[in-house]
């Protein structure tokens, strides 16, 4: 429970810092690991006489990115080469495959964490609540404004037996406060339609 409350408050700040630091790591990665898969020169040549249209891809640098270097083997003979190459269009493109991979993996990781936490908050916590405190507390809880009130008592009950440091107490209080805020927001937006309608 304590790790979950820790996650509740510290996740956003940590993630912001993580993202910022990762951006510097990514740029460093890009600059020294420019693998050959990440640059290409793409030449598109339309149909000419009886040669059909073709697309050529090669890993060449910017100065070599033209029809003569990339179109290989050349489908036409000597004097037609110039006419053929005039129609072709060659573009040089770069990408960073490392950035893409890291970004997608981080995004999915964060999404997964959020989904797990959401699952915990909506499904597991009421079940745990019921199991720890039985039915009587649940009836009492229905009069409360927030459905986490009995659980707040649970934290207090459990904490009285062991000595908790100031920090953990504060984190739990912060988490309870956050949940109350979210509940207020939910009421404003979804129930009373006061903002964001």
């Amino acid at each position, binding site marked *: 429970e304590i790790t979950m409350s820790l996650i509740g408050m510290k996740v956003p700040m940590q993630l912001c810092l993580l993202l910022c630091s990762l951006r510097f790591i990514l740029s460093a990665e890009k600059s020294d690991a420019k693998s050959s898969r990440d640059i290409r020169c793409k030449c598109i040549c339309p149909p000419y006489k009886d040669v059909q*249209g073709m697309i050529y891809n090669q890993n060449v640098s910017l100065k070599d990115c033209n029809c003569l270097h990339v179109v290989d083997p050349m489908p036409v003979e000597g004097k037609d080469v110039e006419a053929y190459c005039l129609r072709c269009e060659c573009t040089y493109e770069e990408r960073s495959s490392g*950035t893409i991979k890291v970004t997608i993996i981080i995004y999915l990781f*964060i999404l997964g964490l959020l989904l797990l936490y959401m699952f915990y908050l909506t499904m597991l916590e009421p079940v745990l609540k019921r199991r720890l405190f039985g039915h009587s507390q649940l009836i009492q809880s229905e009069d409360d404004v927030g459905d986490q009130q009995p659980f707040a008592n649970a934290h207090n009950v459990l904490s009285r037996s062991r000595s908790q440091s100031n920090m953990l107490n504060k984190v739990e209080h912060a988490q309870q406060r956050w949940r109350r*805020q*979210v509940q207020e927001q939910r009421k404003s937006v*979804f129930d009373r*339609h006061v903002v*964001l309608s």
Partner: protein
Amino acid sequence: PHSSLTNCRNNHNADRSALYIFVLVWCVTAGPSVTPGEEVNGWGNPMDLFDEPFPDVSTYEDFHTIDWLREKSRDTDRHRKVRSRRVTLLDAWSGWVVMLLIGLLSGTLAGVIDLAVDWMTDLKEGVCLSALWYSHEQCCWTSNETTFDDRDKCPQWQTWSELMTGHAEGAGAYVLNYFLYVLWALFFAFLAVSLVRVFAPYACGSGIPEIKTILSGFIIRGYLGKWTLLIKTVTLVLAVSSGLSLGKEGPLVHVACCCGNLFSSLFSKYSKNEGKRREVLSAAAAAGVSVAFGAPIGGVLFSLEEVSYYFPLKTLWRSFFAALVAAFTLRSINPFGNNRLVLFYVEYHTPWYMAELVPFILLGVFGGVWGALFIRANIAWCRRRKTTRLGRYPVLEVIAVTAITAVVAFPNPYTRRSTSQLISELFNDCGPLDSSRLCDYVNDPNMTRPVDDIPDRPAGPGVYTAIWQLALALIFKIVVTIFTFGIKVPSGLFIPSMAVGAIAGRIMGIAVEQMAYHHHDWIIFKKWCRPGADCVTPGLYAMVGAAACLGGVTRMTVSLVVIMFELTGGLEYIVPLMAAAVTSKWVGDAFGREGIYEAHIQLNGYPFLDTKDEFTHRTLAADVMHPRRGEPPLAVLTQDGTTVEDVEELIKETDYNGFPVVVSRKSERLIGFVQRRDLTLAIKNARQKQEGVVSNSVVYFTEEMPLLPPSCPQPLKLRCILNLSPFTVTDHTPMETVVDIFRKLGLRQCLVTRSGRLLGIITKKDVLRHMAQMMNQDPDSIMFN
């Protein structure tokens, strides 16, 4: 006994407020801001992160307006203190450090969003087998098996039906692909709305109307918080990937403002002063638009024109810096693989002709008409959602809209792909090498001209198919966006309106092009079109149409034109863009004065006093002030006649935000004004901490203690929370002037006097109600104070 209130020192300059207010009026009206040098920043204790913020006298309550004058005078105070301590250099740099951090984080988040959207949009259709994290285009990037006719097919990318059953073509494969497309779309939308509902309900919607209100001085606690930032970023990707007809530009402004709020809380210079914080938020909004469009200058102008309320010159320079840093960060992440910031950057230089202004103006008219219709329809639908049972099922509503969108969008190839890709294809001109259906012109096989100079060609059958598919897509987008903007996931409006305009523009461009080709002997075309020359560029028409529709909906002027020409990379098309933007604004204004954001502000009843409207009625202050005839008299405090008990009862019985203090009930001469919140906190503090203060203690606001018999309990001095220079007008002041004062100074209330005696009070809510009444709108729709 000395008072234990913390800001007594800050408020003792209330006597000199008059001078500061004079300076402030100069600053705000003349433009350039006076900055005598900046101050020390205090770094907060990290453990304080978990403490509940102590509601001291300087914080505001949720859903209340700030006092701009007080914030300004507190900032000037802070300046003087820091100057005396000589730590000015560090303080001066704190502003620039905040801008730098905002730019870095906004650019990073925008890059993450772009890459993730790219991947997840393609995930609805298939998957890349060689590397699961590649989108369709990235997957086929290195492949050598792409052919000229099938440019986007490669063996590494397989559609779901191909993966599951091994068949790529056929009716069964089509149905399976269709089914899985709809399923993925529903899954993404469901995740998005659930995350919004459970973690951050403020993350839904566009965000721009609320940010406009916040920047005008309103407080919405939690709207720019860390959880809102995280959830908005994550769910924006999900919402855009699910194929809904929404964009990411408005939410990116919200994300950038959340970053601004996050970093401004690191420095006490910004975290403790709501007025200074709004300067940072203005700059952050500029950074948000800059990364959305790849247009730093357009972003600054958008922040200036649309979002901000007060915009001193200092903010202009800092916004530009933040926008540049954000654009540079996004470019270094390079999400689109070719060093461009936006997916639909075009770079052609074909000339346009004067006679083409006629279709451009027609596109402007279309944009204005569509904008007005969209605003009316969307507001009507949102009002229905707000007041009827529809609003009780937000999750079901999102799922229903997604289902309808996905089911109708899949069959049409132009709506199946993401809207950004559609716009990109429509903006691009057709060279001889394009293989899309839209570019299926009949090519002359002997032609050897370079791409830019292809003469006009007759349309092949593919173009006609594309035109009627595009027409269907246009109708679909027009209808579905009305129901999509405002649902409970992050939703923006720029991309759908640009799509509507681009489709209309492209259809018109192709029509004009074919007319010019087939009837090149008509007088109009003969003057400008030689046969065998390039006359008409349908891509340009698409751009002009997009600008017209965006202008019609948001009623932007300068910022729209600058954004569009930064998108196109050239100054050649400024005149067509301006013609369309101006026409669409005129036509739109003929139907209704407000853009979509002002309309949403009105729907929600935010206390936003628009600076753009002109108040031209001839009412006086006496017509608007309270109390009117028949109402109970004004609730006032006397300077030394009320007891603590009386004050508490007054606070309990009424819900006014402040009370004027007069000399006595008989003479009613005004001394000052005291805020309700300050009074409550001061009395609570005094009861707890000062000895001898009981219910019968007299509350006095004068400098010296009043003469009381010795049997009376200890009196309570509350002079330090009294504002000794409240704004007053006489009862014959025209409302024009009063509205001007409220706008320029950001007042919350203004007292009305006659011959020196207090007559009544005008609050911002009264002003807004009066303006609504004058415009024949419902004055009871103003909800907040």
